């Protein structure tokens, strides 16, 4: 038994073909993903305005943030747009997903192609094309145009998510309900909707996230008084160092994390409960 063979044996027995390497690699990827976030969080509590030396703990940037009307207003704008876009796109996207799953009609493929446009084409194209549309019909740029734009791309994502859910949906369940005497209306509300709901919720969540985070499409479709948070951040980031941005990131991260934990909780309850 040669030494080489012995070594290989050991490796196979314990290393399992580089499992260890994979693990280290995964660790590095997480480091890559979280390093900038961690940096922002740490510096949001750092007293020094410039530079990277840790000079002491402070909450002053949070106080400053709380007083910064521009940021707060932008955040409010973002929220308004996101809520409107989420509601509208979820309704539209869901309805359309159902239509696609349940109906045959002329132009289905073409319509599906249109739905996929925002997913497969670079955002900038949608941004400028909507800008061209709005300016040629003379629609005033503002929250309304931003909301329209967001609804348009969000509904595509909602569509995809709900469609996937519907694809997994066992239509025998609907048949079973009707078989037991429920009419179409009762069947939809008692069986179909509750079962597809997690998909709709996931779609809505995605729509909300995309809307709240969008830079490019918003950049082209926004107007006076309709600055959203990402655009506000964009203009702030351009001036460079501002610890208020760090504070803002930390707040947003905290909000996101709590939403995820909340969603997880709900999900878990659902699992031990129903789905």
């Amino acid at each position, binding site marked *: 038994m040669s030494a080489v063979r012995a070594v290989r044996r050991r490796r196979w027995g314990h290393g399992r073909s580089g499992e260890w390497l994979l693990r280290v690699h995964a660790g590095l990827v997480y480091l890559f993903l979280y390093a900038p976030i961690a940096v922002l969080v740490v510096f949001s509590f750092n007293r020094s305005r410039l530079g990277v030396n840790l000079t002491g703990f402070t909450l002053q940037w949070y106080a400053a943030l709380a007083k910064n009307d521009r940021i707060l207003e932008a955040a409010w704008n973002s929220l308004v747009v996101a809520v409107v876009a989420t509601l509208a796109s979820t309704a539209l996207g869901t309805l359309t997903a159902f239509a696609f799953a349940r109906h045959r009609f002329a132009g289905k493929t073409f319509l599906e192609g249109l739905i996929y446009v925002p997913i497969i084409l670079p955002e900038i194209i949608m941004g400028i094309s909507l800008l061209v549309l709005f300016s040629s019909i003379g629609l005033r740029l503002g929250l309304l145009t931003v909301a329209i734009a967001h609804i348009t791309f969000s509904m595509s994502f909602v569509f995809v998510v709900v469609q996937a859910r519907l694809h997994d949906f066992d239509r025998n369940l609907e048949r079973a309900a009707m078989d037991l005497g429920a009419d179409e209306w009762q069947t939809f509300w008692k069986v179909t909707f509750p079962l597809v709901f997690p998909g709709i919720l996931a779609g809505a969540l995605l729509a909300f*996230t995309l809307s709240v985070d969008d830079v490019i499409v918003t950049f082209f479709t926004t107007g006076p008084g309709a600055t959203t948070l990402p655009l506000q951040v964009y203009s702030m980031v351009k001036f460079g160092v501002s610890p208020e941005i760090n504070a803002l990131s930390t707040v947003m991260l905290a909000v996101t994390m709590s939403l995820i934990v909340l969603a997880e909780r709900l999900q878990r309850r659902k699992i031990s409960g129903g789905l």
Partner: protein
Amino acid sequence: MILRLLRRSPALRTLAAVGPAALWLGVFQLVPLVLVVVVSLASRGAHGGIEWEWGLHNYARFLEPLYLGVLGESLLTGTLVTLISLVVGYPFAYYVAGRPPETRNLLLVLVVIPFWTNMLLRTYGWMVILRSNGVLNTALQALGLTDRPLELLYTRGASILGLVYVLLPFMVLPLYASIEKFDRSLLRAAYDLGARPARAFLQVTLPMTLPGVVAGSILVFVPSTGLFYVSDLMGGAKTVLIGNLIQRQFTQARNWPFGAAAAVVLMAVSLALILLYLRLFGRREGESLL
């Protein structure tokens, strides 16, 4: 009442279900795209604005070495970003897909969380890290690894890093989906037949997960050409990608027709990629690219 009416007429039912989306998409998706194509065929006025002098001159202009160069540069950057994401993302997705289900979900959520905090803020985080007096340089100098700050930010490398950072999840998720579907007993079969790990990977795992590789590559490549703000912020506005070019035409140079032409070119390139993908891998009913 309406319900009864709808039950009677399937055509009406279909209309009620499809109508709203068709209308919306028609007005806000189709018309704008057509308008962009129309504008791309017009001319620029002396001080911006559109003059309705039709022609392909904007496309002709795009053929100038400068703009072909921009296109080439964008494609090159996109390719680089895609390759890096792939090389980073593949082993990662492979690892995640191999964990037990509970761990797996947690690991995936951890990938998505950053994705849910503002992209610009995360990009800004990298700026803080990479600046001359940033976290990394300070650390390197403190460790005595270098005596002068390294030039990290405002380089081409930085903007590629920024793009990889923003787009990595789009690579990881489809890769994960296809690796997770990959039946590892095939790998066992390959070992069983005497293949060593490298060969088993190249001849079995990789070809079997190719749809994920391609889907991920498209989802990374396509947006990478349009994300103008990353190269503005991380690259010091030095590199002009086609996204920057389009944005500049609309926001500075006031040449909408030319910007529209550039957008049409970008659209064409993206569509060509998608069609190639569909050609190669088809699409199973109800399955989406994502």
